[in-house]
């Protein structure tokens, strides 16, 4: 520990005002109502001066026992509830749940519906990552402008979601065995024009931000996470890839139609907060490529499996685990059926909850201001953490 400037090592004795407290640790409770915690989340931080020596996350302020609700309702009725988990990414939550139910009931999905799912999931990834970049900059102190630039683009994607599903954020769009409504050619043309312009927006955003000296100073070397530690702690998504582990469930499981698309998986070299920011920017560029391929190749046809029975769906006894690469990481659903209309067990594997495991490790030794930036780069949504 560095000696206190108030207690000189030699010469005249200067008595500091509160010198009996020097060397003591200070426990600060950050949150639950704090703008930098991205919701109602609390960190009990033990500080030595400004340095963090201990950090314990306190969760559960938004806990509503989502899983119990899922066990008390039918398979179809849980679909709109999944929107409320990670409320930025209703489309991917829906897809993960639909995938688990499809495996449980042995349902097939028509090709056009699979294409629509890919399009919507990648649009979802774009708006999630653009939001994250905006929030992260807000957390580093770049108030307002970058966040608003990001939200301007996000709003365009939410408009597309609204015109297709009727809701900006609570989309309730996927069904087990397909999708709820078909996309019109006009809607697909709108997506095309958005995708066409998104690369230009990213160029502009990066020109403003990526090389910015303050961003680099605040994020490079801050919150370093190494690959083996990340794998053991179950970290998934952009955070894992920033740590240098090339694990993308779109490639590994090849669910949906992802094996048909050519895209690269960006991997970080340092595992710090800057890498986590950069991975998201690079993933957005890959998503644009996937969207272009999907919009070019989407076939005509039905969007629902004719054998799928939405109401009164009673799968045979058994269990299934379905997982997809959500924008925040692996979102999975584990279902056990006992043959009745409600699942016997309904479990959500939330990516942001598990990603919080390493929050303390990332923050130790950094200043309290850095903890805000590190938390921002983990990308949590409390609706999903607390369920």
């Amino acid at each position, binding site marked *: 520990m560095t000696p206190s400037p108030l207690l000189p090592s030699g010469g005249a004795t200067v008595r500091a005002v509160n010198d009996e407290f020097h060397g003591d640790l200070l426990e600060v409770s950050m949150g639950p109502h704090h703008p930098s915690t991205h919701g109602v989340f609390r960190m009990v931080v033990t500080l030595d001066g400004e340095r963090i020596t201990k950090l314990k996350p306190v969760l559960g302020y938004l806990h509503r026992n989502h899983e119990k609700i899922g066990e008390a309702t039918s398979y179809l009725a849980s679909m709109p509830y999944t929107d409320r988990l990670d409320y930025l990414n209703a489309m991917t939550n829906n897809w993960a749940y639909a995938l688990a139910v499809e495996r449980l009931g042995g349902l097939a999905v028509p090709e056009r519906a699979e294409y629509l799912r890919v399009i919507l999931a990648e649009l979802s990834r774009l708006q999630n990552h653009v939001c994250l970049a905006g929030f992260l900059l807000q957390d580093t102190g770049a108030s307002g402008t970058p966040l608003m630039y990001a939200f301007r683009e996000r709003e365009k994607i939410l408009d597309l979601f609204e015109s297709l599903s009727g809701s900006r954020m609570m989309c309730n769009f996927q069904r087990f065995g397909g999708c709820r409504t078909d996309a019109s050619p006009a809607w697909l043309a709108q997506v095309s024009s958005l995708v066409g312009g998104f690369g230009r927006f990213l160029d502009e955003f990066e020109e403003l931000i990526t090389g910015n000296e303050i961003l680099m100073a605040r994020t490079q070397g801050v919150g370093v996470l190494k690959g083996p530690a990340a794998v053991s702690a179950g970290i*998934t998504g952009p955070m894992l890839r920033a740590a240098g582990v090339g694990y993308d469930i779109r490639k590994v499981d090849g669910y949906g139609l992802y094996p048909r698309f050519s895209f690269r998986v960006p991997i970080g070299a340092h595992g710090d907060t800057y890498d986590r920011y950069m991975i998201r920017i690079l993933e957005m560029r890959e998503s644009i490529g996937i969207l272009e391929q999907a919009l070019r190749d989407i076939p005509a046809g039905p969007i629902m499996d004719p054998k799928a029975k939405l109401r009164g769906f009673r799968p045979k006894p058994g269990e299934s685990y379905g997982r997809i690469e959500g924008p925040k990481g692996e979102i999975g659903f584990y279902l056990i059926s006992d043959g009745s209309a409600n699942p016997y067990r309904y479990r959500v594997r939330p990516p942001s909850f598990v990603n*919080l*495991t390493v929050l303390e490790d990332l923050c130790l030794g950094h200043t309290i201001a850095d903890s805000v930036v590190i938390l921002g780069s983990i990308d949590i949504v409390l609706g999903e953490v607390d369920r």
Partner: protein
Amino acid sequence: MESTDQICSRILSRLPGAEVSVLQNPGPAAQHSLLVGRQSVVEVATFLRDDPELRLDYCSNVTGVDWPEKVIVEVAKVSTPDPAGGAPKVTEMKTERVQPGYLEVVYHLYSVALRHGPVILRTRTAGRDAPAAVPSLTPVWRSAEFQEREIFDLFGVVFENHPDLRRILMWDGFKDHPMRRDYVEPEDYEWEPTPHGDLVEKAKKARAQAGGTPG
């Protein structure tokens, strides 16, 4: 990747004393699981993680399942020959068997290094009431840390050797385990006494004496 049966026989050949069996999944998903006894779960988990052909280094999902006590009624038909020489008399014999309840912990394992999975690992507690304990697998896979805390909180499974076993989603003073099948929600669990309780009671009495409606 090897099938669940192959993995099971390989575990038994390497760890002869381990209690491992395959639990079939009858549904179309056909994700079968390894049912491991409490005593050998840490040993088996470590083997699954370190075996060069499996290398299940990533524990994705950890969850609990509550299986309460179940009464199984078995009907057996017993035919007794008629002494008068007619058709034999068939009577139904009902036997009731009580299957004791237990809590189950399910781990979904994948390999990041070899890109395969899932291998599903299940272990069961002896009963549903204290001590409903299983060994923690957090020392093997750190990703179980928060998820095992969640199971402790919502199901009441005690994980032995967990580094920090506290409630995580419910508040500290909470007593019950809400994800259990037989959980009954209290009528008003947010009620708490305030210093004004006596005053409110007094006001109610006064209003009743005055002939008003009790507020």
